């Protein structure tokens, strides 16, 4: 990662009285997979439109690949690829026609069009049905075709708006692999709008969380979990013969253990007040003569961060 590929400064877009994007400030580095999280209506799609110069900001601005989307939109869009939230495909065209037409629109060298189209059709497993009309495709096939279209011109920055929303788990994994390969091997910067938190956790180097058009959190998934998830779930395993002794001890430690422990098959799952409670709990258990086989913190994930940030909605 080096210089910022996307620099957003005080970007605001208002629709009537509503701020769709409100004073957004952030940078995205080259080669980064950047997650842009938020509920529906949080401002994710509007931001993508603003960053590609297809929508004008009310105030503020941005630079993408060193270009101003508002004044250099055409040059910029030649270097970015966008997978829109709905596939936005002409259902009366065949996949091959659709890609060929967009290859012309993206100025793919004429001599390369057929090769590029065929290679993408093969890569996205659409070659067998390339000459059928898109109207007959499944949702997953349409999504794959739309993604192939976004990659026709080998963009330097790829904007993906809910790329796996309509895909089955196998197809979704295929997209995840593709996104990782694009970023890690080809240096493509990926701006991933999603409300799939598992996907964001798995793929993203950094994430931004949006709420009502405002940026409410920004950082790596690990940073955000440390910052926003105060409680810690741990698995506790003791000598099975001492299991009956554990519960009364835990119930006597309300400053460390929150709520009631959950009994699993041969261990307990409990929520601690924080990371610092781990050594304290361990010390107490050992002091009481318990043989602790395992006290394993569960890694917090983005889902918990997200719910911590949107606590009011829960």
């Amino acid at each position, binding site marked *: 990662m080096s210089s910022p590929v996307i620099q957003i400064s005080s970007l605001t877009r208002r*629709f009537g009285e509503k701020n769709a994007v409100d004073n957004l400030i952030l940078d995205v580095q080259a080669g980064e997979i950047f997650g842009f999280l938020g509920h529906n209506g949080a401002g994710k799609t509007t931001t993508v*439109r603003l960053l*590609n*110069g*297809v*929508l*004008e900001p009310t105030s503020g601005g941005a630079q993408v690949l060193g270009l101003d989307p508002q004044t250099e*939109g*055409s*040059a910029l*869009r*030649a270097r*970015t690829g*966008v997978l*829109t939230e*709905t596939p*936005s*495909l*002409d*259902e*009366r*065209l065949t996949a091959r*026609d659709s890609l060929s*037409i*967009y290859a*012309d*629109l*993206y*100025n793919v060298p004429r001599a390369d069009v057929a090769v590029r189209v065929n290679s993408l059709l093969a890569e996205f497993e659409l070659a067998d049905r390339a000459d059928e009309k898109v109207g007959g495709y499944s949702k997953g096939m349409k999504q794959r075709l*739309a993604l192939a*279209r976004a990659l026709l011109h080998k963009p330097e920055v790829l904007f993906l708006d809910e790329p796996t929303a309509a895909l089955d788990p196998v197809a979704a994994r295929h997209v995840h692999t593709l996104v990782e390969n694009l970023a890690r091997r080809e240096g493509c910067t990926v701006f991933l709008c999603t409300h799939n938190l598992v996907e964001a956790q798995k793929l993203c180097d950094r994430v931004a969380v949006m709420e009502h058009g405002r940026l409410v959190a920004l950082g790596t998934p690990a940073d955000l979990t440390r910052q926003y998830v105060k409680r810690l779930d741990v698995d506790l395993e003791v000598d099975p013969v001492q299991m009956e002794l554990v519960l009364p001890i835990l119930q006597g430690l309300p400053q460390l253990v929150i709520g009631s422990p959950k009994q699993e098959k041969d261990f307990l799952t409990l929520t601690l007040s924080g990371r610092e409670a781990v050594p304290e709990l361990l010390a107490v258990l050992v002091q009481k003569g318990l043989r602790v086989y395992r006290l394993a913190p569960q890694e917090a994930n983005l889902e918990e961060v997200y719910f911590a940030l949107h606590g009011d909605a829960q």
Partner: protein
Amino acid sequence: MNTRAILAIVRKDLKVAVQNKGVLLPMIILPLILFVAMPWLMAYGPDLAKATNTSFSNMDEMLGHMPVGLLHELSGYTHDQQLIVFILMYMLAPMFLIMPLMVSSILAADSFAGEKERKTLEALLYTPTTDRELFTAKLLGSWVAAIAVALLSFIIYAVMVNAAAWHSVGRIFFPNWMWIALVFWVTPAVAGLGLVVMVFVSVRAQGFQDAYQTGGLVVLPVLALMIGQISGVMYFSLGVVLIVGLVIWLIDVVLLWFASKSFRRGELMTKF
């Protein structure tokens, strides 16, 4: 201007449009009625009237009310020939204009409102095409197709008129200079009018059918021309055709200017 991108959009729009029956059927049925069936019906009208002892006095009366210039142009023909030439050469001339108007309106409705309905515009807006290229491409496809269809219709009509009227007129009499001006001067202007009006209509329309129905009102001036001619207020002389063409071209330029001003990506993204 990126001509490759413009041609790609034209290709896309036409490929998509011709697969819509709502687009294709009127473009086939109307010419068949107007430019194939009508000449034969009109050319054999006087004979049919005689065979069935039906009076053609209404037509004679109408002809009697026609401007002097038209009567002068028809003076070289016999009575029966005058009726045929009047109907096929002059009365149907305004009707011919429905063809480019209708084709450009249908194609523009499919290209703008149809794209809105199918939610396919967004992908196009993310391409490197400029607003001007997009606007040009969207208009160009519908305009050129409308002119091509009108030109083909004219050729078919010319063949049909001369063939159908041969038994009565006995020579090739169609087209005259008025028709040449109508086809090559007025037709492109009328096609332009149809599609520019449709650009405005499409912004508010919910979809192809909605746009096409609302935009259909654009045929009213053509109907006014027809009524004007039938009532004898005016007739389609070469001079009238040249003036009508000039007026429509001027209207086109003004509407096109306003349309191009409002054709901005941001506007399209929020309205479409």
